[in-house]
């Protein structure tokens, strides 16, 4: 979509999330309350179909449009699988399928196919507890097959994330998919796209944390003055801004590269670097924001933890800084020191 349309959509989505996915909804999900109305409205806005072509009843946006929307979702800690479903729908459409309605999620892990039946176990599947179907990409004989497996064909063991979202372990025991097709997107690529989605959500969350801590420090009065007037606090928040900036810049650059390079391989290195960077700084962002807000920010009552806990969870989702960092390090070590600079300037793995 053109720039203007996207900006309009993002603004609308931002206002909508602020209004309908507030504190009570986020806390409710942690207590196990599925916000059915919120999800229904998200579907009515077309957000899960944002990157699905129009001839499949999608919105017809690009991967970059989808990622930009996820940054906004991250900024509001939207506690439903909008990232997972939108990405799953994109993959289904790319494999020639027609996305169904309802929340879906991605089960990215070691799975196998016998005939048409899927087997294997995937841990830490986001929103496994509420997803109506699981989208996976299975590799066999060098070929990638996308499968859509309905909820009643798998066993889900609940294991809520540390942010209180309904993650879980999903066991496929000869499960029959409701749809399967050859996928141009490989399993490794699906993991990259999911990592990019998390990086963009982290960018949104980092931004929100910075704003939350800054506003708080401007209002909180101690020793007769707002604590934001203390140089110690000012420098903490400036440092926090630098980590938020790195998170935002890396995620945005990776999103651009992924979009421009195409769904199947675009921005492979940039995504790895961005997820490494975002995960690496997540803890610093959480640490400084909590320190600046004292005991108040450590309560369940305050919203800060909606964001800091998600940052801690998201840094691990779809590959941590160790996972992606290892891939990058291996590639650059193997290629040798003279390839370091050329590869960096071209945002690619060294070879």
């Amino acid at each position: 979509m053109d720039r203007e349309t996207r900006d309009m959509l993002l603004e609308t989505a931002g206002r909508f999330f602020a209004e309908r996915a507030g504190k009570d909804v986020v806390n409710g999900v942690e207590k196990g309350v599925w916000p059915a109305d919120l999800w229904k409205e998200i579907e009515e806005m077309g957000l899960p179909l944002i990157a699905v072509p129009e001839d499949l009843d999608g919105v017809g946006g690009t991967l970059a449009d989808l990622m930009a929307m996820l940054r906004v979702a991250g900024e509001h800690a939207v506690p439903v699988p909008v990232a997972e479903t939108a990405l799953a729908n994109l993959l289904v459409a790319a494999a020639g399928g027609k996305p169904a309605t309802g929340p879906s999620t991605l089960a990215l892990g070691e799975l196998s196919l016998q005939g048409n039946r899927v087997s294997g176990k995937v841990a830490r599947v986001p929103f496994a507890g509420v997803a109506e179907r699981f989208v996976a990409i299975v590799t066999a004989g060098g070929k990638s097959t996308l499968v859509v497996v309905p909820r009643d064909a798998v066993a889900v063991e609940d294991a809520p994330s540390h942010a209180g979202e309904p993650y879980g372990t999903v066991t496929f025991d000869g499960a029959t998919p409701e749809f399967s097709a050859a996928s141009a997107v490989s399993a490794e690529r699906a993991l990259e796209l999911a990592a990019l989605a998390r990086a963009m959500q982290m960018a949104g969350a980092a931004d929100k944390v910075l704003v939350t801590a800054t506003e708080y420090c401007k209002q909180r009065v101690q020793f007769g003055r707002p604590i934001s007037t203390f140089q110690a606090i000012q420098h903490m928040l400036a440092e926090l801004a630098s980590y938020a900036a790195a998170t935002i810049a890396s995620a945005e650059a990776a999103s651009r590269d992924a979009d421009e390079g195409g769904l199947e391989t675009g921005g492979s290195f940039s995504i790895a670097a961005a997820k490494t960077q975002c995960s690496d700084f997540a803890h610093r962002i959480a640490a400084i924001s909590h320190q600046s807000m004292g005991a108040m920010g450590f309560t369940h009552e305050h919203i800060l933890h909606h964001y800091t806990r998600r940052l801690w969870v998201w840094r691990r989702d779809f590959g941590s800084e160790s996972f992606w960092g290892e891939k990058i390090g291996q590639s650059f070590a193997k290629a040798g020191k003279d390839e370091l600079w050329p590869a960096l300037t071209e945002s690619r793995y060294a070879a």
Partner: protein
Amino acid sequence: MSIPKLEFPPFHLPAEAEALRGEVRAFLKETLPRIKSEDRFASWNTPSPEFSKALGAKGWLGITWPKQYGGGERSFLDRFVVTEELLGNSAPAGSHWVADRQSGPLLLKFGTEQQRQAILPRITRGECYFSIGMSEPDSGSDLASVRTRAEPVPGGFRVNGTKVWTSGAHRNHYCITLVRTSGQHGDRHKGLSQLLVDLKTPGVTIRPIINLAGRHDWNEVTFSDAFIPEDCLIGNEGDGWLQVTSELAFERSGPERFMQNFYVLRELVRVLGRQPAKRASAILGRLIARLWTLRQMSTAVAGMMQGGKSPAIEASLVKDLGTIYQQDLPEIARTLAESDATTEDDLADFLDIAQYASMMAPSYTIQGGTTQVLRGIVARGLGLR
């Protein structure tokens, strides 16, 4: 007041700039092995007139300046590429660095026509080098407190005072010197001016200040009744502060803020061998990801500047993150090499490199605006002061 949103719009360097990169790389590959350097790991502050002249002959100094002054009339982004290639290939760029980066643009903006014609073409040929005379014994981060006084006398100024940390004054030709031309010491921003000082002027004495690594980069430059002709005033009398602040804001976010010790990362890749262990690979990858991010931030700021914006907060954030990265790099690399270097020989050699880099590291967060000054700027941008 709401908080301004941090934005780093991803930016591609244009095709012309990328084409220039190829030319610069080919030139460096051919030229660098022939250049003798006193430093084992040369960088932006290692002087080499020979190299600067070769670069000037290619037309890559004053690359953005008007052709009438010997410039290339190319874009700011072309300059960005030349700069990062010099850093990425550890070229000894120290002779021309300040003149090309800071002094030339200042003269172009505020200098007289006579000054421009006399100086700029020589800079573009790689023959004319500059120092910066801002800091004084009692005036560091608080630059407005300078005491060096230029007293108007017939035909010019009589200058008395002392400048310190004046890099390269012992081998450079000129020093753009911030002085008080009117008013009193307490007047702060008022009454300051900049003078174009020929470092061979009688009454100007240059003494070395050796840094902790035993290097002679810095000098103390003393003015004792030194006569500076009136045509050496840069811009208007009393506009010194305005001119200095525009100079300081110049490219706060350039690649030199995160690539000064790039050689450490390159040598780390060497010492770890072709198949490091998982943990070592991950740590190396994290360092590379941080550098990649800084480069994305830096190009994003360059793109915004090219688009006519002045992203002051974003630029300060790049310098803050970049200089701290440069301090972390030798320490992370040192401990990683100790556990994971492939051979003993490589390790001993690398530890010397890393130790040297660690010794140099404190300077990164001091020069060109300390971390604390930068964070003050960012805090102001966040509406905190």
